[in-house]
């Protein structure tokens, strides 16, 4: 079974802190994604990566950056956390090639609260 793990289930940070959310997958997937989920807005894509050191902006990249130094690990970085970044963050991975044809495997999510 594909396993996608996220470093924390719950996280509380203060405004202005630098926040790192880690995601690891064990299926050798080339493609990895970071979404945020907010009530009434569904899932919105923040960044995705289709290879090591490769990244592309999603729909809402502002205030976020990412790092992919190893194939299995994709990190989301909040450079200076703000209260409007309080949300559920979901990481996903999928098979390579025409990736949008294939299912995405999700981690359990990190519920981040910024105070």
């Amino acid at each position, binding site marked *: 079974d594909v396993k996608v793990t996220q470093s924390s289930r719950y996280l509380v940070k203060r405004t202005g802190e630098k926040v790192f959310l880690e995601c690891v997958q064990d299926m050798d997937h080339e493609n990895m994604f970071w979404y945020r989920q907010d009530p*009434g807005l569904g899932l919105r894509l923040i960044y995705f990566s289709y290879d090591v050191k490769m990244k592309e902006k999603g729909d809402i990249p502002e205030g976020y950056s990412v790092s992919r130094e190893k194939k299995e690990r994709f990190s989301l970085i909040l450079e200076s956390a703000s209260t409007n970044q309080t949300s559920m963050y979901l990481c996903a991975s999928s098979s390579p090639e025409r990736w*949008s044809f*294939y299912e995405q495997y999700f981690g359990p999510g990190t519920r981040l609260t910024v105070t």
Partner: protein
Amino acid sequence: SQQGEEDPQALSIQEGENATMNCSYKTSINNLQWYRQNSGRGLVHLILIRSNEREKHSGRLRVTLDTSKKSSSLLITASRAADTASYFCATAPRWTDKLIFGTGTRLQVFP
């Protein structure tokens, strides 16, 4: 706006009844996928239907796709309390590589 819009937003039924959720989208797609999310957890892939398919089955799940109406439906037959979750459709539009998720249908199945 969202590519996929689910209807209804919330649905409450008794165990044993069927649950039907609908998804509408706006542009041409390569495929449409349905996911399930238990409260506070990640999403789990349920089923994928390609644009050239009209119906697909998986266990108690039945998905239909009508590309002329740009809509899909997910039917869960003989529902169980364990089916209580949020269900999301996700579309793979032809003009982009992204998956676009809708806002979901919250299903409550009462024992």
